């Protein structure tokens, strides 16, 4: 009887979670949480394409939320970064840029979205630096806008520091110059708290890794 009650209680919990007790926002929160867990354990181009596909599904079902587009863009960016297939690299990045713009449409003047845009633009540049030098200005402009909107967003400094890290000294980059920016990023990450658990909260480890490479 005790066992049965236990099973029944569990079943009821599961039941309530699955159907009537599940309000739309809860469904969204749960869905995003699941997506972020997938993102946390994703590996390689295939893994990130999988999370991109997942967030795109959430995005088309939740017409008013910007975060699914944001994470879909982020996943496509990482998939584009990791893929070795040069022919498809630009397509991932173009998709990421389109999704950044969709997120921007839903949440205008969002520092996080502009920071991510600056990231994607820099990676677009890195595909063919000689022909796309102009994208460096575009990336810098997006990051400047992100900074104007919220100077406390640590990801701006991470992305800007990362861009500087990978840009040759001759073009205004270099590890020495990146160090100061990444240190700012690390300091801002230490005090950063996202407004909700599903808003962007990534990058602290990346900043540490890059700083470790400089030292």
């Amino acid at each position, binding site marked *: 009887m005790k066992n049965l009650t236990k099973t029944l209680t569990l079943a009821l919990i599961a039941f309530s979670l699955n159907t009537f007790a599940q309000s739309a926002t809860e469904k969204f929160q749960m869905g995003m949480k699941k997506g972020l867990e997938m993102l946390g354990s994703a590996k390689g181009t295939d893994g990130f394409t*999988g999370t991109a596909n997942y967030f795109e599904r959430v995005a088309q079902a939740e017409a008013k939320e910007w975060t699914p587009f944001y994470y879909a863009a982020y996943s496509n960016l990482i998939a584009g970064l990791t893929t070795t297939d040069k022919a498809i690299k630009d397509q991932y990045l173009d998709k990421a840029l389109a999704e950044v713009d969709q997120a921007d449409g839903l949440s205008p003047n969002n520092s996080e979205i502009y920071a991510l845009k600056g990231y994607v633009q820099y990676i677009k540049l890195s595909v063919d630096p000689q022909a796309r030098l102009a994208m460096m200005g575009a990336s810098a402009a997006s990051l400047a806008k992100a900074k104007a909107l919220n100077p406390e967003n640590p990801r701006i400094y991470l992305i800007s520091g990362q861009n500087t890290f990978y840009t040759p000294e001759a073009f205004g980059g270099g590890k020495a110059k990146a160090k100061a920016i990444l240190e700012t990023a690390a300091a801002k990450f230490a005090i950063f708290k996202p407004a909700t658990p599903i808003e962007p909260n990534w990058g602290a480890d990346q900043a540490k890794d890059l700083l470790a490479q400089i030292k």
Partner: protein
Amino acid sequence: MKTLLLSFFLLFTLGVVQAQTHITGFIKTSKGKAVPNASISIKNSYDGASSDSIGHFDFTTTEKGKQVLVFSALNFDKDSLLVTIEGKLMNLNVLMKEVVNELEAVTISAGTYTTGDAKKGAVLSSIDIATLAGSRADVIAAMQTLPGAQAAGSESGLFVRGGTAAETKTYFDGMLVKSPFNATVPDQASRGRLSPFLFKGTSFSSGGYSAQYGQALSAALVLESTDLPEKTTTGITLLSVDGGVDQNIRFKNSAVILGGYYYNLAPAYSVFKQQQNSFIKAPEQLGGSFQYKAKTSASGMFKFYAAYGVSQLSLNSPNINVPASPGFFSNDNSNIYVNSTYKEYLNASWKLEAGFSYNRDQDKGLMVQDNYKRTDKLLEGRATITHYYGRLSNFKFGTETFNTGRAESLNTLNRSYTDQLSAAFAETDIFLSSKVVTRIGVRTEYSSYLNRYNVAPRLSLGYKTSAASQLSFAYGRFFQNPEDSYLIQKPLDYEQADHYILKYELNLADRLFRIEGYYKDYANLTKVNGTSLDNSGNGYARGFELFLKDKKTIPNGDFWISYSFLDSKRNFANYPVLATPAFAAKHTASIVAKQFIPSINSQIGATYVFASGRTYVNPNNPVYLGDKTKSSNNLSLSLSYLTHVFKQFTVLYLNASNVAGFKNIYGYQYSADGLNRRAIQPSSRRDLIIGLIMTIGDDTFVR
């Protein structure tokens, strides 16, 4: 109680089982190839999956009833399927079609070399043009390293596939530029007026071009101006021969760009001996420009460009008949150029483009003892409407009208002419599939001065032979008015050329190879018979060209090789017979290489140009244009050192032309009695330019 609970539990679990439907299957192409990483989803729900490496997918859903199943993947067309979900296992096999995207579809490209940033099929980027060794950041000079164009010589302009410089026309955002070159100095090539930094893309077409472009028998150089600058910045250019400042002011949806420059060749001429003319006043030029660009909507753009420049020079040019009394020549030039365009999408499938331009170029001065003055004018208005349909196809039609002419005087003698030339064109690109495209176009013109019509058909075909290779064919009939110097004497007829071009191209990610063969048939060329003019001239040009660009073989470096074979003869101007003109060297080859060396923050560039001998008129040889010069060679080197001065991004620049000191001769000028001759040579044997380019307001390389 127990039974009740149990039954409730059973019911509940049954319910759960019923609510979940298992959907599984494979996604493949029609050829049976697996489509990995595809997204499968039920519309308006979170439920779905990604396909694995063998195209397999598998998921469960709680949705029921009629649902739309959506399939998407990069490189594939998005597709959907209406399904009824009833709780039973669903096994689906889905076929997806590979997308016909613009990047992979066949293109119209016979005869055309596109340059620009991130452009489809781009051959050279803007940076390639600006940093080309020996080009001094001149768009025209950079084009001379591409197949089809003759090597720079003693005349201004682009000589393409046996055509004269007047047969190549320059278009700025679709509008004809009447005077794209600086004032002409006897026996010297002058620079293009338009800075390469004004443009984001360049398309150099050595034949078979679109019906949109008229009044060019041989080639079209189509320049596409940049959009809004990203930021407010100041650019400073200091070269050993000139200095310039440009200020970009960026507003939210618009920008103002102000520019000014000054150049003076006197210091350079004092160092590098002038072989041709002895300058009394070395060329000196002062100019300024104003640009306003505004985004009028999400897809609309308005652009306005105005430039004004003045230049002065005077010299004594050698006189072969009486060496003791050289010919005095002075020139004061002023040039106004205004170009304004507007572009807007009327809706998703209709685009409107409109523009007007004005160009006035005035030369005056003294020629030996005679006062001369010459004013060329062009006012153009143009409108084009494009309708996009299907995936990639479009239909375009438009009209343009030019008010053009020349006025000249010599001492007290005056003459002038004005022509109102109106044109209409229609053109369609039809993609029969992603592998086959055809472009059919027609252009018609009416000139009030010639009082004649012309009708010019154009046809292009493209066939994709594999994912990376393409075969193209182009045919076109081209008309242009005779040159101003003839028209001012009397109205004539249109000059005419027919082009036939066949091209094969292999375009891999980091390598590009092209081979192109052509035949060009000239008719109605202007001929001078004694003192009378008529259109009895004719001629032909045929040849083939090779182009190879490689960004892969050398790390941090790239190079391109061009080779042109040209066989051309014409009977025009004052030619007594059909002969090979001086501007039609049989073999032309160039190698351009660039290497970035990270350890010294520098880019080294080298350009080598070879041209076989040019013909010249020797009055002692009964065969007209029967003599040939020796072949010419030129090796130019450039070094760009990237650094920061006062924390501002700076490029220090060094460009040396003809470093090996080859003694090149373009031809000979004979005395009237045929006993003496003088060699026409480059203005100086060697040349060196040192410069500094600085961008303030940005610590990265953006210009």
